[in-house]
């Protein structure tokens, strides 16, 4: 067996590299501060606001945006949409990196991160939805890791191990969809326990369903969005099949996203009706709710449909970024903005710059890891020595 040589080029001072270097250096500095001076020195968390953007963005948004892995592998391997095959590996990779970074971010947020395995090995709090989230995220991170290994094993030339893993594809895909269904929905269900703190327009017994359905939108949109970025920056790494299928993937996913967004919109309306929260629509929170549901659910739904019908990739890609932003807004609303709506503004939370710094740091690590892996491993092209799976 021969390991491939990793050729580390001399870093070139492109604008991206300069910004990334600054973010990483600052992030490392904040990391030291976080683990020597505590959360008080680095965050604006308080007794009223125990969860800030490290949960609202890094966990809630991170997990939703990493949904591309299960959505794409399910479409290709379970629903038999083989023309999406070249989209699977990039989606699995971004999913794996996304979840890995979510877990990394949690190490900053929880008080004693070395105890993160305690819910599994010391005492199981099975009445907690957070237990379900933790168990599923831990298992799914493992599944994504295994699903990603064929690329690494091909790169390393470990043929037998690679073929063994490939044989597990179907089982892993099914397991991945089950785990994703459970924890994507449970992230929403986390807030079911606090009806007195979450604004009635966002609180709903359907929270779990909202989070699950919108995670499908997030997954589809992220695949389109990341695909567009990959085409811009890694076009030279793509093989013929990838380039040929890419437009079909974007259009197909846009069509699917349009349908799912339509269903999601109806669900949101049902949620308001179920809570009989119509009168809240006339308030400030109501206006913000309408911005979210019309501006970032209904309109992207229409624009995805138009883009797919006209086969207009520009519209599709633009709408994908739009829909992703909508998911971010939704998770921020549930986790931060509409949460603790009853408190006076003096007690409300706004992130400390160091919290934003760590979130940027973690996203940057993800981009750098993606760059390295895509540059070295067969992600955007099929390895010539192996049968596609």
């Amino acid at each position, binding site marked *: 067996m021969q390991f491939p040589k990793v050729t580390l080029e001399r870093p070139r001072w492109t604008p991206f590299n300069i910004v990334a270097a600054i973010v990483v250096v600052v992030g490392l500095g904040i990391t030291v501060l976080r683990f020597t001076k505590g959360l008080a*020195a680095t965050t604006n*968390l308080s007794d009223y606001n125990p969860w800030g953007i490290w949960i609202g963005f890094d966990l809630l948004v991170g997990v939703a945006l990493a949904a591309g892995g299960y959505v794409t592998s399910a479409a290709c391997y379970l629903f038999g949409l083989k023309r999406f095959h070249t989209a699977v590996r990039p989606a699995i990779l971004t999913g794996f990196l996304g979840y890995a970074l979510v877990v990394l971010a949690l190490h900053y947020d929880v*008080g004693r991160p070395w105890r993160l395995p305690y819910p599994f090995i010391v005492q199981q709090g099975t009445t907690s939805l957070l237990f379900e989230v933790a168990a599923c995220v831990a298992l799914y991170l493992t599944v994504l890791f295994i699903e990603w290994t064929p690329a690494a094993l091909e790169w390393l030339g470990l043929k037998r191990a690679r073929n063994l893993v490939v044989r597990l594809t179907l089982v892993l895909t099914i397991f991945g969809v*089950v785990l994703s269904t459970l924890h994507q929905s449970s992230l929403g269900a986390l807030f079911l326990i606090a009806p007195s703190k979450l604004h009635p327009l966002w609180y709903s017994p359907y929270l779990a369903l909202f989070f699950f359905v919108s995670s499908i939108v997030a997954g589809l949109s992220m695949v389109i969005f990341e695909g567009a970025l990959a085409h811009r920056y890694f076009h030279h790494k793509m093989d013929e099949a990838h380039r040929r299928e890419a437009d079909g993937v974007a259009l197909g996913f846009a069509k699917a996203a349009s349908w799912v967004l339509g269903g999601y919109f109806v669900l949101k309306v049902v949620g308001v009706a179920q809570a009989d929260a119509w009168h809240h629509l006339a308030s400030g929170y109501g206006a913000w709710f309408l911005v979210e549901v019309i501006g970032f659910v209904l309109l992207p739904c229409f624009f995805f449909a138009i883009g797919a019908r006209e086969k207009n990739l520009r519209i599709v890609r633009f709408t994908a970024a739009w829909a992703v932003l909508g998911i971010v807004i939704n998770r921020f609303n549930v986790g931060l903005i509409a949460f603790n709506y009853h408190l006076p503004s003096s007690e409300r939370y706004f992130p400390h710059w160091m919290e934003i710094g760590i979130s940027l740091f973690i996203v940057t690590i993800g981009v750098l890891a993606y760059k390295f892996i895509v540059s070295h491993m067969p992600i955007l092209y099929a390895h010539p020595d192996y049968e596609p799976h």
Partner: protein
Amino acid sequence: MSISRRRFLGWMGAAGAGLAAGGRAHAAALPPSGGHPDALGVLFDVTRCIGCRKCEEACNRVNELPPPERPFQDLGVLQKTRRTDARTYTVVNRYEGIPGAKGPLYRKIQCNHCLEPACASACFVRAFTKNPDGAVTYDESVCVGCRYCMIACPFEIPTYEYDKALTPRVMKCTFCHPRLVQGLLPGCVEACPSEALTFGRRRDLLRIARERMAQFPGRYLDHIYGEFEMGGTAWLTISGVPFAAIGMREDLGTTPAPELTKGALGVVPVVAAMWPVLLTGIYAINRRRDRIAREEREAAVAAAVARAEAEAKKKLAEALAKAEKDKKAAIEREVKKALEEAARARGEAPAGPTPGTPGATKPA
């Protein structure tokens, strides 16, 4: 749990209230108390509280909490509304200008020790315990520090030691559980000079509250806060003004916190059981559809090939037959021609009718 008679009488004596009268005969008629019928509680009477902060001082002392920034004798701190924090398990706030109240009113905040605690239900490592004596206690030795308990608590009681880098704990009132075990009263109850806090079995406290309402008509609202709120709490409050006026939420409802997540948790095994079946089914259906499509395609191709072959054969046969016919005709023609020529050569007239013109037979 078993409270020894001696310990129980100790509490009663210390509380100075004739609570021992509460007999077991009442138990069946009273609302459930989280499966612990003998669980203890405290009744806080807002009309009796004078805002002296003696309870805060006692709490700080018996729980060995850090000294306060301003001394407990300083009543100036009451000018600001405060909440529990990592150094304070209980706080008294002052409320002024409430319609219907003669002077300022005071309210004590601490953990209400829910019968079905949201914090305990939310904790993914079971750091919280609802003890049979009613106290909700916290075990820092397993706590990961996710702070979901703080999200879950409808009374916004648990707090966190954000300033500790390596050993932060959730901090909250323990109902002086270690003291109860020794037969001592909670620190705050023991220190209260105005009997605003009454300690006893929760079911007795509910009765006492009603008795006070009956004894002093018009002094109290007909509502024992904590009897049903969030499924009921060990600490109960009675007041002469609406609870919202003294900073207590009246919109919490009566559903215990675990009920709120029961549905979502119940879906988990269903998804875990049915999703694999459903997804394998979808996979199998698609594979079967692909296989049938392939077979049909193959069958269609085979049929088309066979049809083409048969047609070709037929065409060939026809062509051969025609060629044969043409050949025969040509021979006949040639024979006839030869005969005619022979006849003409012999100078005779043609015998019989001419079989068509030469143009009638096309060349093969």
